[in-house]
């Protein structure tokens, strides 16, 4: 110290920092740029999380929308007088167990006359869900006097037909025509001859589509050639050969073309019927009649049209006949869209259009009830002990460390505990809300204990001291004064814990709550499933319609979660006290 002083007094060296020099200013600018960059990284990180959340929610909600509505056919259903034997007419059980399939078939055939043959008839009936007669069944059972009359009833469409009206089908374009056309017959395989090269435009489209297919085959062949998998080389050669054939067809501009399911479907709407083109030439076509023609007379220009279903038949779930039938129902104004109440009132099903969430929601409620009954008293009691009564010793330390560690144990390990202990050792029933509730209670217990301790700690000691001062015992002070003041905090923690339990899936998979259960559970020992597990189960199913159902179930789950967390926040805002 003294050294420095003597040194400076001896020869005063003053280092001047020139803040106006270009170097110094550049340095400052550089540092401020670094500052701005650093700050923007932080903002970017938060925005990334926000964008991810937004994308996730929007994606789920968009996917879920189709599941909230359902399409049905409003048809006149004639119920023959001898539908049930006369002596059984007022017996609801007999009415319920009657065969409704013929009724459906007749109603459909009345709506679209002229459908003949086993194949088309079966296609027609398959447009309806297996649950289509449910509404009629209940109406008849409630009011047997309807037997022998014709009633207007909504018949639920099958999942694929339903999805067709929700946009999973195909785009349809219609082109008016300039010349006349003459069909050779009204049903079966017919030819239609047009005046002039009426179909050449379509022929060009088909050739282009063929060229496109050839290109796709070549790309696929290249990929196969790169692959090292066995058989890849043969596959590549095979694909190349296919591509060559397709290209040869595509280049020959004039030749007639056979249409197959890889190409867009072309149809001719003529004389009130619909013909699917199988062979296409510039001036004439050959095709199958899908909807029968009213006559084989010549159609005037403009009276017949060429219809294109843009999506190839092989790339959609429903074939051309089904599209044609559904379009016919739509033009007849018989398709009705309504809110899908069944989604909330029925249990699970293998048929997407019949599956509902009621079983899962009931199961969730029962499971959470068990969880709440167990973990709220135990959690609060443990928190009170640790916060207010526990002496500071090694035993209390162990309990505390233990609770902190339990909070971080993976949830699936709790599932293992449930499986080995509750199911295998104690012999409790599988798949039951009782066991699910037990496991979840153990899972959220640490959360509740930690939250309750924080709430108890937040109550100022002066309150307890005042109670003790007027002669209350320690327990009286805690139970009569501290605990009521800590209650809002405890409730908030409990709701957050319950919300956590509501979203938990993995441990419940372990204890068998993944079974396919149609019935709505009625008690805590019935087999049941819960919402998140239902989501998991549906997400695994191959039917496209279940994807929307899964998303819709997620939306329901998220709504529950938001309501619970919202309540917690409201409680906190409403009752939180700053001391």
């Amino acid at each position: 110290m003294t050294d420095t002083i003597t040194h400076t007094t001896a020869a005063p060296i003053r280092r001047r920092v020139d803040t106006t020099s270009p170097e110094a200013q550049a340095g400052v600018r550089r540092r401020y740029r670094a500052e701005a960059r650093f700050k923007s990284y932080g903002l970017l990180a938060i925005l990334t999380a926000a964008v991810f959340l937004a994308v996730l929610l929007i994606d789920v909600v968009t996917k879920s929308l189709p599941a909230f509505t359902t399409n049905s056919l409003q048809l006149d259903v004639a119920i023959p007088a001898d539908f049930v034997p006369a002596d059984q007419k007022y017996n609801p059980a007999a009415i319920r167990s009657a065969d409704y399939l013929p009724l459906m078939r007749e109603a459909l055939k009345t709506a679209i006359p002229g459908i003949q043959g086993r194949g088309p008839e079966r296609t027609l009936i398959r447009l309806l869900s297996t649950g289509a007669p449910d509404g009629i069944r209940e109406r008849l059972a409630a009011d047997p006097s309807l037997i022998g009359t014709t009633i207007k009833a909504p018949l639920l469409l099958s999942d694929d037909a339903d999805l067709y009206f929700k946009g999973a089908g195909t785009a349809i374009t219609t082109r008016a025509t300039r010349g006349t056309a003459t069909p050779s017959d009204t049903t079966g395989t017919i030819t239609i001859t047009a005046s002039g090269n009426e179909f050449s435009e379509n022929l060009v489209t088909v050739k282009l589509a063929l060229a496109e297919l050839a290109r796709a085959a070549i790309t696929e062949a290249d990929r196969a050639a790169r692959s090292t998998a066995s058989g890849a080389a043969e596959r590549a050669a095979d694909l190349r050969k296919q591509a060559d054939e397709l290209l040869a067809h595509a280049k020959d501009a004039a030749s007639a073309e056979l249409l197959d399911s890889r190409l867009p479907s072309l149809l001719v709407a003529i004389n009130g019927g619909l013909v699917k083109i199988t062979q296409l030439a510039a001036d004439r076509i050959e095709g199958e009649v899908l909807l029968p023609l009213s006559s084989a007379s010549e159609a005037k220009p403009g009276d017949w049209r060429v219809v294109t279903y843009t999506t190839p038949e092989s790339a959609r779930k429903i074939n051309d006949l089904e599209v044609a039938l559904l379009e016919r129902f739509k033009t007849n104004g018989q398709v009705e869209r309504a809110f899908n109440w069944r989604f909330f009132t029925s249990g699970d099903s293998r048929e997407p259009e019949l599956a509902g969430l009621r079983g899962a929601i009931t199961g969730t409620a029962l499971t959470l009830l068990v969880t709440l009954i167990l973990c709220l008293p135990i959690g609060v009691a443990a928190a009170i002990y640790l916060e207010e009564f526990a002496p500071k010793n090694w035993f209390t330390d162990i309990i505390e460390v233990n609770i902190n560690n339990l909070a971080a144990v993976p949830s699936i390990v709790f599932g293992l505990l449930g499986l080995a202990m509750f199911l295998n050792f104690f012999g409790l029933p599988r798949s039951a809300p009782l066991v699910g509730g037990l496991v979840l209670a153990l899972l959220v217990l640490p959360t509740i204990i930690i939250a309750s301790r924080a709430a108890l700690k937040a109550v100022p000691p002066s309150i307890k001291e005042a109670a003790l001062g007027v002669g209350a015992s320690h327990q009286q002070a805690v139970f009569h004064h501290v605990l009521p003041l800590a209650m809002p905090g405890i409730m908030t923690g409990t709701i957050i814990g319950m919300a956590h339990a509501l979203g938990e899936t993995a441990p419940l998979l372990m204890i068998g709550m993944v079974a396919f259960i149609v019935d709505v559970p009625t008690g805590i020992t019935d087999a049941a499933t819960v919402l998140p597990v239902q989501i998991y189960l549906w997400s695994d199913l191959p039917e496209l319609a279940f994807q929307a159902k899964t998303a819709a179930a997620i939306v329901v789950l998220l709504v529950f979660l938001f309501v619970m967390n919202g309540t917690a926040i409201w409680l906190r805002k409403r009752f939180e006290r700053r001391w």
Partner: protein
Amino acid sequence: MTAIYFITLVFLVAAGYFLASQRAKVLRAAPNGAALHSLPTYHGLLGAVALFVPMLIVYAIGTPVVKMLATTNAFSFFPSELASDPLQRGVILRDVGNIIDGRYQGDPSAALRDAAASYSSTFSAGRLIVLGTGVVLGLASLFLVLSRISPAFRARNLFERFVIAVLILCALVAILTTVGIVFSVMWETYRFFFDPALKGRPTVAQFLFGTEWNPQAALRADQGEIRTAFGFIPLLTGTLLITLIAIVVAGPLGLFAAIYLSEYATPRFRAFAKPILEILAGIPTVVLGFFAALTVAPYIRGWGEGLGLDVASESALAAGLVMGMMIIPFISSLSDDVINSVPQSLRDGAYALGATKSETIKKVILPAALPGIVSAFMLAISRAIGETMIVVMAAGLAANLTFNPLDAVTTITVQIKTILVGDQEFDSAKTLAAFALGFVLFFVTLMLNIIAQQIVRRYREQYD
């Protein structure tokens, strides 16, 4: 039965409360009565407890004993080799239950009918005895309390001692849970490695260092020779790969988010950003799994194909990315706490030297908060390792030994779930393997947590 017992219990407890408190009140109201030590309420509560505890204990002990006796009696009608076979035992018990409930299909054999009759008679007699014993013991202890009620009787102290005992019991549930986990997982793991009766069990070394995982066993002879292998390495690498991707995503994002929120954000921005992170943290993992499997994975696959890469449809990348998103709020909230607990004096010192905010953060705050941030990362890693639903839905089942994030890998949790969902018998190596995996999972996450908590604790002491 249970209902009758507990209705009796509730009724008697109410009566006990009333009797005891009434007695105390009478004592207090007596013309020459001294002041009571405890309020009559406490006498009543003590009376209720005196009834409740013995009755509960009798029920808890009595019911299983009665059930066991009834079962033993029922099996006395069958040959002993039937009774000792666990499978047959289960069948017989179910049949007996069905006969008693009147749901038995067909004509029961004579032995079965006798067994059912004996079972139900033993059971009903036993239940009556349990009820009787419970009531007698409860009343006895109630009268003991009643007989001791006097002005000097310290009813409140006794009752408070009971309350403390209940509180301690509740606190012990946490310990019991841990003991339960350790016991159940360790026992099955022990059997997996050392039970001589278990076919196809691996040695510990084979498990820890084997590079092939294939728990499928041939169920029938005609399925030919299916080699089972319990090599843990592919699961470990799969888990680590997905965890690594998740941490690479979530680490910087979470840390920067925490820095921005604690150092830069205005209160208004915080009020908007905090809930977003909280909502993200509250999204159930099954939802994230759905998103990963149905939106992210196809997108990555399409993107990879656009670049000419071969991407598995269940790539580790998709699961890892979404898991990373799940962990962001976790890392950010833990780091936020840590950064906030760095003393303001350190910041002020750095500002006084002319440092910019980012220089202060980089040179002063982060080094000071480093232990806490490390522990936050460790907790996040432990969370990622134990996460189940995202990987179950978005990662594969094939145990590939690879570090390519575009390949499908499997993880410890996926294998546990795959093995244990559905019917399982507890004497096959396959089922027990899941418990061995669970043990590894529990052990690893526990270690990470303990170390992380130690770091935090030491770090807190440094600044307190």
